[in-house]
């Protein structure tokens, strides 16, 4: 195997055990068992409506679960409140629709969390914020408002905003699906370099190039279940389940 990133440590960072989630009568997550190791990059793939977003959102409890247990770095997820807010700040999240704060400048988007949640000094947060903006390649946009940026730039700012909290793990929910094709790569490049630096990442994406380049493991979901898990090369070339084969034949034809 020719994976380039640092090897995962073998130490569990995110654990989901027996997770069940319903939306009313709809059973959206079924018996989810998933362990992500520190430094590991897991790509979650599957048909629309299979529960990928919901899975992501349960990990920082934007969605509460009905049954089962989720631990991040050995800590069970607390109930809503201050404790949970603290834990969430350790789990970075990047959304499909960026969700930057439109009334704040790019730099303020990145410093808001460190200042308000981590109680960092404004100057320190700004210095660090500018470093992160440089790292994702938008240093020269710091004083602009999000609406003045392209989609690709906005998504890179969103990644910088999440990184500013120094998270233990980053969740990406289809980070490139809302982008024009020519902007997809600039975002994937940032994510690939994060992966190489050893960030623990759970990435919902259908970008197979990224999965092959950066992922240690592909998790295939269908109808609320994890159907198959395999290293990317193996998953894409010889999936074991019929459902994965069927799904891949659909996304590969276009």
């Amino acid at each position, binding site marked *: 195997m020719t994976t380039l990133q640092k090897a995962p440590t073998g130490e569990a960072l995110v654990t989901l055990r027996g997770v069940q989630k319903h939306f009313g009568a709809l059973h959206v997550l079924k018996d989810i068992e998933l362990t992500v190791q520190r430094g590991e990059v897991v790509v979650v793939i599957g048909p629309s409506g299979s529960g990928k977003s919901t899975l992501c959102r349960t990990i920082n409890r934007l969605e509460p679960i009905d049954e089962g247990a989720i631990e991040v770095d050995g800590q069970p997820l607390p109930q809503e409140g201050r404790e949970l*807010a*603290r834990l969430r700040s350790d789990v970075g999240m990047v*959304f499909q629709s960026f969700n930057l704060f439109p*009334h704040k400048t790019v730099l303020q988007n990145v410093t808001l*969390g460190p200042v308000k949640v981590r109680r960092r000094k404004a100057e320190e947060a700004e210095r660090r914020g500018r470093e992160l903006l440089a790292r994702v390649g938008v240093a020269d946009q710091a004083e602009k408002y999000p609406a003045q940026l392209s989609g690709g730039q906005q998504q890179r700012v969103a990644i910088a905003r999440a990184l500013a909290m120094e998270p233990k793990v980053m969740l990406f929910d289809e980070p490139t699906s809302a982008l024009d094709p020519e902007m997809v790569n600039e975002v994937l490049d940032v994510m690939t370099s994060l992966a190489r630096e050893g960030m623990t990442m759970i990435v919902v994406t259908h970008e197979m190039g990224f999965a092959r380049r950066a992922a240690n493991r592909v998790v295939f979901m269908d109808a609320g279940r994890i159907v198959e898990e395999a290293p990317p090369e193996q998953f894409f070339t010889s999936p074991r389940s019929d459902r994965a084969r069927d799904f891949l034949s659909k996304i590969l034809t276009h």
Partner: protein
Amino acid sequence: MLETLTDNWDLFVEAFRTTVLLLIVSGAISLVAGTLLGAMRVSPVPALRTAGTAYVTLLRNTPLTFVFFFVAFGFPRLDIRFSYFAFAVVALSAYTSAFVCEAVRSGINTVHVGQAEAARAIGMTFGQTLTQVVLPQALRAAVPPVMSVIIALAKNTTIASGFGVMEAGAIGATLNERGYPAFDAMIWVAVGFVIVVLPLSLTQRRLERAVVRSR
């Protein structure tokens, strides 16, 4: 016609001063209380949501005269004794804050849910999410409807004259007693209200334009 105004200039000035004071004091209280009520109505605590909804439903569906009535005659029974002016402020604020609440809530509803989620995802508490992310955006969207509520409040202050407050709404009856034509008196009162409300309308238009620019 003109002497109705000039002969009673002091009365007009004094009464409109009271009207403007009622407007400013009740308006300020309503803005603060209405925003808090709006926050209650979107809070994750069910009891707060229920209390907020109950308050708004009750106050919005009660005629203002009744609110005045309950305050002016209910409070003294509870041994709460204020001036007529203070009773009027309480009644007007209690009533108007329900409308401000709804305007603020409609503003909150224009803010995409992803905004609150992004704020929570970086570890903000409910209070921080609201004050740092949701309300600044919601209040911009709420400016036009809130200004309409305040303009309605300016006119609603005239109910206070029925409860012992010498504001502009009392001018007509007073002048009638003094033997001036009621119609002339009312025309001057109407002119006075145009003068009070016009700056509000102009502010509303200016703020609306500013909000559009900041998007």
